[in-house]
């Protein structure tokens, strides 16, 4: 837009405003919008910017003329102009590391920017200034889509409050951001964001922000904020007044508030002095009205913030700031990229090289019918595979085919376990056997059958890109529950007993009096595999130390207290049992898996749980049904039950998309007797890292559900192997719910089928196939 055109637009806008004003009609949204455009233009004029092509020019004369005018936006505009001036000398497009702000959003100091983190990035931010402290867990769920779960504490909340309701006010909030435009040579990155979308609304805000890199070290951000980000330096209410928030309930999206009410500009600049050192300055549009004006927790003396950040590593950053003219601020951020292993990838010993048939073990004649020879082959295979934690459950061989059933207990990658197995087979099995059938087992049940040809193994071990060629030549076939009659089995595989003792930590989060409570426990677990598919397992634990029981929270739920008495369970349990179950896993048909579990199923419930799952190994989807009859356990978690019982169950559908997105829908009856559905969406990486969110809506009215309105949360799974770089199947899982109440509550039974069975279907193995030859 050249200056003539711009001036014309301005004149037309001004004329329209005058005409509207003269008409004396009540302000319509259209009129407000026109006024809004006019104010934006005025704001632009105040700072002396006139647009020419894609870049702005600085006009000192215009700025001088405006000096006598008092404009609340001017300091921020000054920063912007300074940045623009600098940029003229260093015009370009460079990649400056996107950093996080005080709210854990990609941004400046307290304001968001148009940038996003690396796809899949997981970050944790801790920041504090004056009375305000924030802890944020963030996910870059897709290249443009980000989500943040934040816990905010504001100290001195009731210093001047006669009610003395809170010493420190704690609140949870959830944000969503979407990058509309990626930064290009001329275009800035543009992002729209929604803060505190389903929380109490105390921190709710919407923003539209743009960031542009100039040269190799300067990034300038400008934006418009609504709600909390629009309450300082307001330019008006272009889209109408903002409806009041019902802070007490929360839990549901407040669509009616979005982009309503006052809108205010914010701006800032980042100067990356070096990859490790960044200076920031910003003009904030957050008035902190409640904190500074109503609660008097701190003095917001200025909209200007300044800071310096130091990044000792690409994944770690700390910062120190001057906030709002009166406070010192500190922040620390950890950003993990799932695509970059913490330890630099899978380490540990290499595999057994594939052996040529001419060098394979010679078994003489008659081995096809000789059970002793087959048993020797099985023993030889087991000797090689023991080191990788692979148990050979059975072996069947004939002149041209070998079927091996294996259980992988150590390697974190299932394709790698298959690869190690075929290598061992080339070393041990007679040269005439060309067809290898690999049958991974779990809980004594065959999960899939993968057929590979020995000649392909020999040909592709060192072939460039041989992994892709091999999986294209492999076949995923149906498999029945029983091994062939002629199969041989290892001695002493069943019954099998295992046990371990380890410390464990139980946590209770988001208690208003103490947001993080924890108990340290000592737990002993034992498992007795009576026969293939029949498992007796149990655990007993003793609390060593902790403060969960100190919580004064008690349930006020209007529903049966199916989950909300969690504190009571923690209070009364000392030496507790659970789970303690007998489980039977089976495969009644080639694509059908079943489970029956009886006993003390989990902390709060005992009973019977039945499950059926249909899944084909070559398909990315599955269907399941689960029916449970459960009775609530006594608070002491020993052997007694309470009076409450329920029939609960779900029909479940699962689908894995090609891009690593996995969807699950469960429809059924929940523990409190409510009917509804749970939708779960998760992003998965081939290395086992998963992140996602879920929400449950049932026929319980929001008002009856209580605080939060409905059950929802986010979860994260980090395989320990990714962290330590060594093979282990341990996975750290965490689920964060804003609040755990009784509506939409499901049974937490162990050994659900889908998560086990899906590991060996084609779509999941495809994703991890890169490590077949590892």
């Amino acid at each position: 837009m050249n200056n003539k055109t711009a001036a014309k637009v301005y004149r037309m806008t001004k004329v329209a405003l005058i005409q509207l004003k003269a008409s004396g009609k009540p302000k319509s949204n259209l009129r407000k919008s026109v006024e809004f455009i006019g104010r934006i233009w005025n704001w632009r004029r105040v700072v002396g910017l006139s647009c020419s092509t894609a870049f702005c020019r600085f006009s000192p004369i215009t700025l001088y003329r405006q000096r006598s005018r008092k404009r609340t936006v001017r300091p921020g505009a000054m920063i912007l102009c300074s940045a623009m001036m600098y940029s003229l000398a260093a015009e370009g497009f460079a990649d400056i590391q996107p950093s996080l702000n005080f709210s854990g959003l990609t941004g400046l100091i307290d304001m968001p920017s148009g940038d996003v983190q690396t796809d899949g990035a997981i970050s944790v931010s801790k920041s504090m200034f004056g009375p305000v402290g924030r802890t944020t867990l963030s996910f870059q769920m897709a290249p443009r889509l980000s989500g943040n779960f934040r816990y905010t504490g504001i100290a001195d909340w009731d210093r001047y409050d006669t009610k003395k309701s809170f010493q420190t006010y704690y609140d949870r909030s959830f944000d969503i951001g979407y990058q509309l435009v990626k930064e290009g040579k001329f275009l800035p990155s543009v992002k729209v964001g929604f803060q505190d979308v389903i929380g109490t609304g105390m921190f709710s805000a919407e923003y539209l922000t743009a960031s542009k890199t100039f040269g190799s070290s300067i990034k300038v951000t400008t934006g418009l904020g609504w709600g909390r980000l629009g309450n300082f330096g307001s330019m008006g209410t272009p889209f109408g007044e903002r409806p009041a928030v019902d802070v007490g309930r929360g839990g549901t999206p407040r669509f009616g508030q979005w982009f309503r009410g006052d809108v205010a500009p914010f701006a800032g600049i980042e100067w990356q002095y070096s990859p490790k050192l960044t200076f920031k300055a910003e003009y904030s549009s957050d008035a902190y009205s409640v904190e500074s004006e109503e609660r008097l927790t701190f003095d917001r003396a200025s909209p200007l913030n300044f800071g310096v950040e130091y990044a000792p590593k690409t994944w770690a950053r700390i910062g120190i700031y001057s906030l709002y003219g009166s406070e010192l601020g500190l922040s620390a951020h950890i950003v993990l990229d799932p695509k970059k292993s913490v330890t630099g990838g899978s380490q540990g010993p290499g595999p057994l090289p594939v052996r040529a048939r001419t060098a394979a073990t010679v078994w003489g004649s008659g081995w096809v019918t000789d059970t002793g020879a087959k048993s020797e082959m099985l023993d030889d295979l087991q000797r090689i595979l023991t080191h990788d934690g692979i148990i050979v459950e059975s072996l069947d061989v004939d002149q041209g085919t070998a079927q091996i059933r294996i259980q992988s207990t150590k390697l974190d990658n299932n394709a790698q376990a298959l690869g190690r197995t075929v290598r061992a087979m080339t070393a041990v099995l007679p040269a005439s056997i060309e067809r290898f059938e690999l049958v991974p087992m779990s809980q004594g049940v065959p999960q899939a059958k993968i057929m590979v040809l020995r000649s392909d193994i020999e040909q592709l071990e060192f072939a460039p890109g041989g992994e892709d060629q091999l999986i294209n030549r492999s076949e995923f076939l149906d498999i029945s529950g029983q091994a062939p009659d002629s199969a041989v089995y290892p001695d002493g595989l069943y019954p099998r007993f295992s046990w371990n003792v380890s410390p464990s930590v139980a946590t209770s989060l988001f208690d208003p009096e103490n947001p993080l409570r924890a108990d340290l426990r000592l737990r002993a677990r034992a498992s007795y595999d009576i026969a293939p598919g029949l498992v007796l397992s149990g655990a007993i634990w003793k609390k060593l130390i902790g403060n969960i029981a100190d919580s004064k929270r008690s349930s006020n739920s209007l529903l049966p207290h199916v989950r909300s008495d969690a504190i009571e369970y923690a209070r009364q349990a000392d030496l507790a049992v659970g789970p303690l179950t007998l489980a039977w896993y089976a495969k009644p048909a080639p694509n059908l898996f079943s489970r029956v579990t009886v006993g003390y199923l989990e902390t709060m419930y005992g009973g019977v749980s039945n499950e059926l799952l249909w899944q084909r190994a070559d398909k990315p989807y599955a269907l399941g049904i689960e029916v449970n009859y459960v009775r609530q356990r006594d608070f002491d978690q020993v052997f007694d039950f309470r009076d409450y019982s329920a029939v609960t169950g779900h029909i479940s559908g699962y689908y894995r998309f090609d891009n690593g997105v996995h969807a699950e829908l469960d429809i059924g009856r929940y523990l409190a007797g409510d009917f509804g559905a749970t939708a779960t969406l998760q992003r998965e990486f081939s290395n086992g890292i998963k992140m996602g969110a879920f929400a449950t809506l049932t026929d319980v009215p929001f008002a009856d559900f209580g605080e939060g309105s409905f059950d929802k949360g986010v979860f994260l799974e980090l395989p320990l192997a990714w962290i330590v770089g060594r093979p282990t199947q341990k996975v750290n899982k965490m689920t964060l719910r804003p609040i755990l109440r009784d509506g939409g509550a499901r049974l937490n039974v162990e050994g659900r089928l889908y998560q086990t069975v899906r590991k060996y279907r084609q779509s999941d193995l495809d994703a991890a196939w890169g490590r077949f030859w590892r």
Partner: protein
Amino acid sequence: MTLRIMSVIALMTSLSGCAASPLSQIALSKMAGSATSAATQPDQTADQKWITLVNRGVKFQVAQLSERDGVTVWAARDGTQVFLRGSMVVGTRGFGRDLMSADVPTTPTLLEGRAHQRTYFDMDGTDTMISHVFTCTATLKEAKDFVFGSTHVVEKCLGDLGTIENTFLILADGSVLKSRQWISQGIGYAAFD
């Protein structure tokens, strides 16, 4: 690296109601990964050579574990492996972010000084296979400081990851006396004596 691991562990313990102590799990994991299978250990009398991982500053001895289809597998005492086709590296195992396979030139191709391509297959942090194609040129000069008749070859390659440079000291009979070769993003360069 340790700081990073500890940070991740701190993150997990601080945010999760985790079932077991990650510290104890690490200890168990290290114990489990410390031994190698007898089947993956080379014979004591096997041929040996020295390898230096230049970027990591590590030098170690490897012994021949197997040979098949022109590729020799060399294994170190800790079980890590390097695959050589002739003298060209075509794979590694156990170093983290390994080179899984590679399409490489032969020594005669280098000595002819012809333009050629290299393709490397390695894994990103999610264990997804990725390939990198490089276009290469080889420059030859007589290596007078070494054995008479030997040739010093500098192979410069340009690809999506930038420029890499491999060097070879090739004897008159075509065998490689020494080399310095790029392996992968995770490993960097390795020198072979």
